[in-house]
């Protein structure tokens, strides 16, 4: 078949092209360039910005997990900060009590996440929408209270210090070492995510999102796939929490408050629910916004007076931006990106894209 214009990337003409991870040679080329620049990035970044990049990687893992649950499967979760805390505290407990090495604690965090996911997911078999959201929020408060009690009882009232981990004889302490470790980990998690969404799991989850009754009628075991979505998501979340614990070096229950939950919600909403690219863009946006505000108050003279209020401005902006995206652009940054792309791909025609 021949086309008069170039075929838009959304239009697949063969099964092989539908199954491809990276479409054309053009995409492959730019993916390679992107990866190479990611590898070279810490050579140009200062230590501070490398640390920011590391926080960003961890946030991307967390945002991908939340997106899997909220965006793909359509199960609202307001317990994300509590799930991250579970991962971080699993590491803290294993390091404090058993002095366990990093691979063991990471595995323990993932297992804890799977168990937690099944526990938190069980109400999802009975509840929908608002009531499910409330039950996950309640779960958040229960988790935080239990962990707070643990923190108070074990005697480290202020929190747990996590020493820099050893991995295969290497001590990971400098931000640059962390950067390469986290880059690799994030790449693997990203690949896993993309592949889940292309496989039977992903299709089942999306079917449940669109209409669970119809999904059931199509032979999808809704209960099983809901629990699977919950435990996959919480396992990833706990993994992110474990990485967070090691990278921060200090775990205290105060860090996992509602503000952290709001940050992750902002990531997936601003990025665009249901889109892997959106989760990444949202994480970049949310992590970089405070730094951009700080830079702006420092460099722009008329904003100097706001220097001490960076946190309030940032939180307020999150709220306003979150609301604007909810009301005006439900597909988020990923939607804006897709529209821009189709505009150029379809140029000079003005047809709407297939997905929009």
């Amino acid at each position, binding site marked *: 078949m021949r086309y008069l214009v170039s075929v838009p990337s959304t239009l697949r003409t063969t099964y092989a092209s539908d199954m491809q991870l990276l479409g054309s040679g053009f995409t492959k080329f730019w993916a390679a360039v992107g990866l190479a620049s990611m590898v070279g990035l810490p050579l140009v970044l200062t230590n501070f910005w490398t640390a920011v990049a590391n926080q960003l990687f961890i946030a991307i893992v967390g945002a991908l997990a939340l997106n899997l649950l909220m965006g793909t499967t359509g199960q609202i979760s307001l317990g994300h900060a509590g799930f991250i805390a579970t991962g971080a505290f699993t590491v803290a407990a294993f390091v404090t009590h058993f002095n366990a090495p990093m691979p063991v604690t990471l595995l323990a965090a993932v297992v804890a996440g799977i168990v937690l996911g099944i526990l938190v997911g069980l109400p999802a078999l009975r509840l929908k929408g608002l009531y499910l959201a409330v039950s996950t929020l309640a*779960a958040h408060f*229960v988790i935080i209270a239990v962990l707070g009690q643990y923190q108070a009882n074990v005697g480290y009232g202020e929190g747990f210090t996590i020493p820099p981990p050893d991995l295969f004889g290497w001590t990971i302490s400098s931000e640059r070492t962390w950067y390469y470790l986290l880059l690799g980990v994030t790449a693997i998690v990203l690949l896993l995510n993309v592949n889940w969404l292309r496989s039977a799991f992903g299709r089942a989850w999306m079917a449940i999102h669109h209409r669970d009754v119809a999904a059931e009628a199509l032979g999808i075991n809704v209960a099983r796939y809901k629990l699977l979505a919950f435990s996959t998501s919480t396992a990833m979340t706990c993994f992110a929490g474990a990485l967070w614990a090691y990278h921060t070096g200090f775990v205290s229950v105060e860090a996992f408050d509602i503000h952290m939950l709001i940050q992750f919600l902002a990531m997936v909403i601003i990025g665009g629910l249901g889109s892997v690219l959106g989760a990444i863009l949202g994480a970049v946006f949310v992590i970089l916004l405070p730094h951009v505000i700080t830079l702006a108050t420092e460099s722009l003279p008329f904003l100097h007076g706001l220097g001490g209020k960076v946190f309030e401005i940032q939180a307020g902006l999150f709220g306003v931006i979150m*609301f604007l995206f909810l009301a005006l652009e439900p597909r988020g940054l990923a939607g804006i990106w897709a529209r821009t792309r189709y505009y150029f791909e379809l140029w000079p025609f003005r047809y709407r894209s297939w997905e929009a």
Partner: protein
Amino acid sequence: MSLALIILIQASFYALLGMGYVLIYRATRVLNLAHGDLMVFGAFLFYQGLVMTNGSAPLAITTGMLGAAFAGAIIYFLLMRPLAGYPAAVRVLATIALAIVLRSLTTALWSGQTRYPAEYVGQLGQAIELAAGLSISVIDALIIAAALLSIVALPLFLQRAAIGVDMRGVAENALLAAQRGINIHNVNALSWAAATVMATIAGIFFSLKVRLGPDIWYVGLAGFAPALIGGMDSLRGVAIGALIVAATEVIAARFIAPHIALAAPFLVLLVALWIRPWGLFGSREELERI
């Protein structure tokens, strides 16, 4: 003070909060997760009134309530009206967005410092002797009185007053109400205003009894547990829900551990959601069943 009295005081406080949730839920079918921050905002308005009038409590309370009612109506028109017709999930997330905007606003306006408005008012800590060995402080007596008054007055208002009937009509079937010439947006804005005033009353009591600071939103948020347990669309249910939650919390604090007591309302809520998701007095069809 006996355990029963402590539970009654705590339950009254929860009932005041929970009724705010119910008012908003009935009007706009949204669980308002910003209720705790509305409470903080209203309490700070009250505090501002106290500072400006040099401690005149009646004037400060009027300032707080009027300001809160105004804020509630504005929030409805700015936030909820544009989202009319959106999925419930989106609107709940929007109230989270509202919560953080409000929180950063209060912190920016009044700083994160903890205040004690009771210093301006005085005489609130005085004990009233109820019976031999049983006494209650003035503020606690006021909390119980306010809760009882609202439990009696609010349903009566909704049943008898013309505007209350309008509110019920809109809650029952907004489309039909609009067809009958009720301005549903004004009525809903009134519901939001009323709920914000309820939040402010709870906030005033808490700030007078304990303290005032941007961090007390947590207390206000806990109020959704009694509302859900009682049934999100039932004002009467809230009172029962508040009693259950308060009893669990106080008993857990006394006999188990303080951190667990903080989570007690939510533990009860999880159990309640599992057994009876539509609440004790809520209407069953409210719940989207699977």
